[in-house]
């Protein structure tokens, strides 16, 4: 430790500018890689502990076995992944468009907001697991039921964020639009929607993950078998058959989907706001 300090001081004294830049870049790269390195060590620890303690596979399989299962079972898991993803994406898109439209409706009329907002909250705070059985009974088609469940969970963050965003437009800019006789649609398109964008996109990021959770939860409740079943059913099925590595493989696919959704929506947010919003500026 002492020796390292000495070396650093001497080089810094030699060429201060170059050295510090190089160090900063190295530090930054390390910071970027940190979560992966940490994850790698955790997985290694997991694998070692499982092997050393001889933990049975039906209790906790090691990551290597899970990876191998994922590879061998991918053919049977892939269709389920497609089904779960499709429901998630459909629910998310309906929630995004519907949420934005409802948010716009809320800002255009105090009355509509007063009447509807409390019920949006009621829907949000009622656990989806509790309503899912009812929806599955009511809906003719299971797929539709799943879609409704996922949508119910994903809907609220978009509505509430869009409403907050649309209501927090700069007063002076509203005055300016008034001054030039802007019509209501003009004020909505050119002023309120753009200024609500950061809020709306933040809502989307939350609701993307929630749509997946909603879809998976509803699949668990519905518990339908056959070809039309999603990843959640694959987990249930594997659990009954004590195929624990397969359970983990399905779980991994669900998490990966969630991460992908979050990543894509973060990129979208950065792209849309790249010119003006602090949140999209990053470290620049």
């Amino acid at each position, binding site marked *: 430790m002492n020796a390292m300090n000495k070396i650093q001081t001497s080089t810094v004294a030699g060429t201060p500018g170059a050295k510090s830049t190089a160090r900063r870049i190295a530090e930054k790269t390390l910071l970027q890689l940190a979560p992966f390195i940490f994850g790698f060590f955790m997985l290694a620890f997991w694998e070692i502990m499982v092997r050393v303690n001889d933990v049975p596979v039906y209790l906790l399989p090691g990551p290597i076995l899970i990876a191998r299962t994922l590879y061998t079972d991918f053919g049977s898991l892939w269709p389920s992944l497609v089904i779960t993803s499709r429901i998630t994406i459909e629910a998310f898109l309906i929630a995004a468009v519907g949420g934005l439209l409802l948010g716009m409706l809320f800002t255009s009329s105090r009355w509509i907001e007063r009447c509807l907002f409390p019920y949006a909250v009621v829907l949000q705070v009622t656990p989806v697991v509790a309503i899912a059985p009812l929806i599955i009974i009511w809906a003719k088609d299971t797929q539709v039921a799943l879609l409704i469940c996922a949508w119910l969970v994903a809907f609220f963050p978009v509505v509430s964020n869009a409403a907050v965003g649309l209501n927090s437009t700069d007063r002076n800019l509203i*005055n*300016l639009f008034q001054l*030039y006789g802007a019509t209501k649609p*003009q004020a909505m398109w050119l002023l309120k929607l753009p*200024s609500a*964008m950061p809020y709306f996109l933040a809502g989307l990021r939350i609701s993307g993950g929630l749509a997946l959770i909603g879809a998976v939860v509803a699949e668990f409740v519905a518990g339908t078998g056959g070809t039309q079943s999603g990843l959640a059913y694959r987990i249930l099925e594997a659990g009954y058959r004590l195929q624990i590595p397969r359970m983990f493989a399905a779980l991994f696919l669900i998490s990966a989907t969630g991460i992908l959704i979050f990543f894509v929506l973060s990129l979208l947010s950065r792209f849309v706001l790249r*010119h*003006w*919003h602090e949140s999209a500026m990053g470290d620049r």
Partner: protein
Amino acid sequence: MSSVSTAIQEDNDASVAAATEHASSRPLISIRSVDKIYPNGTEALRNVSLEIPGKPQFVSLLGPSGCGKSTLLRMISGLDHHTGGEIEWPTTAYDYKGRPLAEIGFVFQEPTLMPWATVFDNVYLPLRLKRQKRAKVHDQVMDSLRMVGLEKFAKSYPRELSGGMKMRVSIARALVTKPKVLLMDEPFAALDEITRLKLNNDLLALWEKQNLTVIFVTHSVFESVYLSDRIVVMAARPGRILADLSIDAPYPRTEQFRTSSLYNEHCRDVSGWLKQAMAGVEDEH
């Protein structure tokens, strides 16, 4: 559809042209015994009368905070409503809501730019709201940017500009519709001293070139004397006009004017009036 709107446009142009013939004889804005009482009973303005002549003027509204100078400006623009008296624009055309049609530009205390839009799009906004095609008014927007010296920044975004530059964009936007009156609500109050002095000179240069009346709200004696040929001193509680002074120094005014004895004399005079405007307020505390 488009032919109808052009016809209306031409009609407006004709009436504006007819109006300008009498412009020097008829007042541009007549404010007669205007009161403003807020619903909670606060009396913001009492019996304010002011005439802005047809001939271009640089008028400053000067007074302590709470004297209603900003309120008066907002009422002239139609953003705020008076509860008594009349505000008339005898020479102008009106839109269907009774507001003067494209005759005013407004500059707020903040630059009030849309952060998601480029400098060009910010200046284009007033024309866009009047459904003018971008390609058709491109040169008009660029002219306005050139007037404030920012034509090279048309594609920049507001966050890339300094505070003074943002204010210039705001001024370019106010001027893009070629208004007769430019209303400015303490536009340079948030800027640093050096930027403010520079923008003062730029504004004067602009004003001398354009056929323009400026109504400029400020709480700075020095700024108002340097810029205006007329200063309206207002007092608070209730907001009222205390004095209507003329600053008879020739334009163009330069930095030399700031050090002249004439300037000092006017500053002393105006300060005296401002002191009187504050007197009532100090008594209350």
